[in-house]
């Protein structure tokens, strides 16, 4: 049984036609189901829990990246598969998963090609692609055993896959491609660049980790799957194989077989 979690913004009239077309297509494909509309006072986890009690096995986020993140924060605690129907911008996570916008996403759902992936967690929130600290003198306490001091003002990335910003930008050089099914996160510190050197200054630092703490003397900004947060301390770990997700053929990551 399917449960569709609608973003609050989809109650706007401009989405009415698109939603009607999607609902008709889902009915044609025989995968219609329970519909929950998000609102300010509605808890996503409670909605999914209620759905699971009623026999839901697949939860589909209908909306943009924020909707997907809300659903992704709740889904790992239940034995359900997650799907996405992207409507509205940004929809980078759907692109990462190879799910096209609008009505075409229904066919991807129906094909039900699933993959089990690791999921990252930072300060209690889940992420699929990567966490990036764009700049700031941060220290990484890794596995509770050793401490890594990154060069000042340089970026630090913690990748489950690769940062969305560079993955979807054809002009940007790929920072790193991590395996999202190996049970590990990869902390990446890009190579230093000299003042008079425009290219890579050498190899990048890569650490395979299960948990780490990013800390700094002052609050720093970090970007999680495209969204900015600020903290003085970020507790990061990986939940191996905790997300079963429906993907499209054009997904932008590869899991080794």
């Amino acid at each position, binding site marked *: 049984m399917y449960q569709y979690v609608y973003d609050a913004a989809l109650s706007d009239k401009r989405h009415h036609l698109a939603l009607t077309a999607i609902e008709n297509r889902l009915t044609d494909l025989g995968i219609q189901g329970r519909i929950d509309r998000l609102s300010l006072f509605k808890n996503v986890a409670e909605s999914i829990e209620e759905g699971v009690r009623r026999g839901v096995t697949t939860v589909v986020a209908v909306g943009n990246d924020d909707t997907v993140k809300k659903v992704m924060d709740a889904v790992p605690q239940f034995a359900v598969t997650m799907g996405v129907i992207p409507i509205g911008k940004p929809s980078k996570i759907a692109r990462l998963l190879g799910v096209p916008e609008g009505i075409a996403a229904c066919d991807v759902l129906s094909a039900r090609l699933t993959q089990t992936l690791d999921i990252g967690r930072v300060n209690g929130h889940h992420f699929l692609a990567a966490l990036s600290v764009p700049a700031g003198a941060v220290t990484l*306490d*890794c596995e*509770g*055993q*050793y*401490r*890594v*001091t*990154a*060069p000042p003002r340089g970026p630090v990335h913690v990748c489950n896959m690769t940062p969305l910003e560079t993955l979807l930008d054809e002009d940007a050089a790929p920072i790193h491609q*991590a*395996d999202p099914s*190996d049970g590990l996160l990869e902390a990446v*510190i890009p*190579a*230093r660049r000299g003042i008079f050197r425009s290219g890579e*200054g*050498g*190899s*990048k*630092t*890569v*650490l*395979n980790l299960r948990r780490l*703490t990013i*800390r700094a003397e002052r609050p720093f900004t970090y970007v999680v799957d495209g969204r900015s947060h600020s903290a003085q301390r970020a507790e990061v770990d990986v939940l191996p194989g905790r997300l079963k997700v429906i993907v499209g053929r054009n997904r932008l990551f590869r899991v080794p077989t």
Partner: protein
Amino acid sequence: MFKPAARPESANNDTVIAAGVKVEGDFTSAGNIIIDGEVSGTLRTDMDLVVGPEAKITANVTARNARIAGEVHGNLSVSERAELSATAKISGDIQARILVMEAGAVLNGRCAMGAEAAPVHIPTPVLRNRPVKAES
């Protein structure tokens, strides 16, 4: 014997410490480790270790194979083959089944080789660093 281009390409599960990055504490990895930065504490891998010419290691080191071109202050315990290139500077004891030294390599310490070589004593905890404790 020593080919500068023979440095392995880092595979997906390799750990790399690039120049400008400092690591303190008990640094352990199940895969290969490539170091061009600074490490202090202990350094241990079940696989191979490559220490670049700019690397500075103040740690006792355990590895299966080791290729060293930088500075190491501490004891080396290598179960298979240890290679010291011309720029290597070792201040500590080495135990290895096979030891290869290029002309110019500096070794200040005792050396034990062969299958029956007595293992180098590696005291723990080591040197000046302890495992990192989370600060509140």
